[in-house]
C-alpha cells in the first residue's frame, strides 16, 4: 500500500506532521493544486499501515488519516510489480 496526500483536499495545516509517530510527514515548500503548501513524505515506506495493512486485513495506526481535518490522507494500492520494466543500474 502507498500513502498519498490528496492535493485537491489538503489545506496545508500540517497537523499530520504533529501526529505521525514515524515522522513521515514533513512541512513542505511546494504549493498544491489549490495553492496551499502541501506537506512532503519522508521515506513513506516506513509507514506501518503501508506495510502491514494487507497482512493484518485491517487498518493499523491511521493517526494521520483520522486527524487530517480535510480528509486528504489515504492509502492506495501500489502498481503491481512488473519485472520486465525493472531497469538494472550498474
Amino acid at each position: 500500500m502507498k500513502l498519498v496526500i490528496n492535493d485537491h483536499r489538503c489545506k496545508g495545516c500540517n497537523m499530520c506532521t504533529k501526529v505521525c509517530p514515524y515522522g513521515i510527514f514533513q512541512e513542505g515548500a511546494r504549493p498544491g493544486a489549490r495553492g496551499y503548501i502541501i506537506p512532503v513524505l519522508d521515506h513513506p515506506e516506513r509507514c506501518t499501515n503501508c506495510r502491514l495493512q494487507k497482512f493484518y486485513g485491517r487498518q493499523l495506526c491511521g493517526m494521520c488519516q483520522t486527524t487530517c481535518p480535510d480528509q486528504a490522507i489515504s492509502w492506495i494500492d501500489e502498481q503491481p510489480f512488473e519485472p520486465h520494466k525493472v531497469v538494472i543500474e550498474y
Partner: protein
Amino acid sequence: MNLEDWYRQDRLPHIYCAGCGNGTVLNCTLRAVQELGFRQEETTFISGIGCSSRASGYTSSDSLHTTHGRALAFATGVKLVKPHQHVIVFTGDGDCSAIGGNHFIHACRRNIDLTVVCINNNIYGMTGGQGSPCTPYGAITTTTPYGMHEQPFDLCKLAEAAGANYVARWTSYHVKELTEAIRSGLEVPGLSFIEVMTQCPTSFGSKNKMRLATQMIDMFRENAVLKVKADRDTAAGKPLEPGKFIVGEFVRRHNPPLGVEESK
C-alpha cells in the same frame, strides 16, 4: 460499509478553514459509526447553526441542518417518532450552551437516546470570532477585546448534573480516545454527551498567540490532564493548575432513557 462511504464525497473538500479541527471530529464520529456497523438508512445526523453544525452536510445519510441552538429539539422529534434510528447531533459551544442552553439541559434531563458531539472551539467561528459561553477567562475575542471577563461553562458538569447517561471530554488531538468515546456514547442508551476541545486557529488562535493550528494542538497536548491523574492529584490535595482541563470519561450510568424502543 467503508469509511469513505460515510462521507458525501461530492461535497468535499468542505468549507472549514485550514487547520480547523471540525474535520477531525467528523472523521472520529464517522469512524465510530462505521466501526459499529450502522446502516446508512438507520442513521440520522442533526445539527444546528455554526461551523460545527455544517458537519451534518458532509455525512452520507439522512441529515437535518436546522436552526441555531435547536438541533436537540429537532432530534427529539425524530427520535421519538423513529426510536430505532441512531440519531447523532453535531453542535458547537455557542449553539449548544448559549442559544440552545435550555434545549441542552432538557434533552439531558429527559435522557433521550441521542449522541451529542459538541465541538467546543471556545468561540463563535462562523460569525467571525465573538466570545461564547465557553470562551476561557481572559481570552481575547472580537466582543471581548479586553479579555473575557465572565466565567466559562463546564459543559460536561452541566450535562452530568442535568442527567445525561454518558459524558466524556477529549480534544481534537486525542483522536483514538475520541473515536472510542463516541462509540461508547452511541452504545450507551440515553443521552450521551461528548465534548471535543477543538482548535479554531482562524478566529481564536490568531487572537490568543496561537496562530498555527499546530500550536493549538500543542496546547491541547500540554494542558489536557487525564481524569485518572486529575483524580489522583485531587486526592493528594493538588488542585488543577490554571489553564489545564480534564479529559476522559466522566459519567457512564444507566438511568432510564427516553426514546428507546421497548424490547418486544
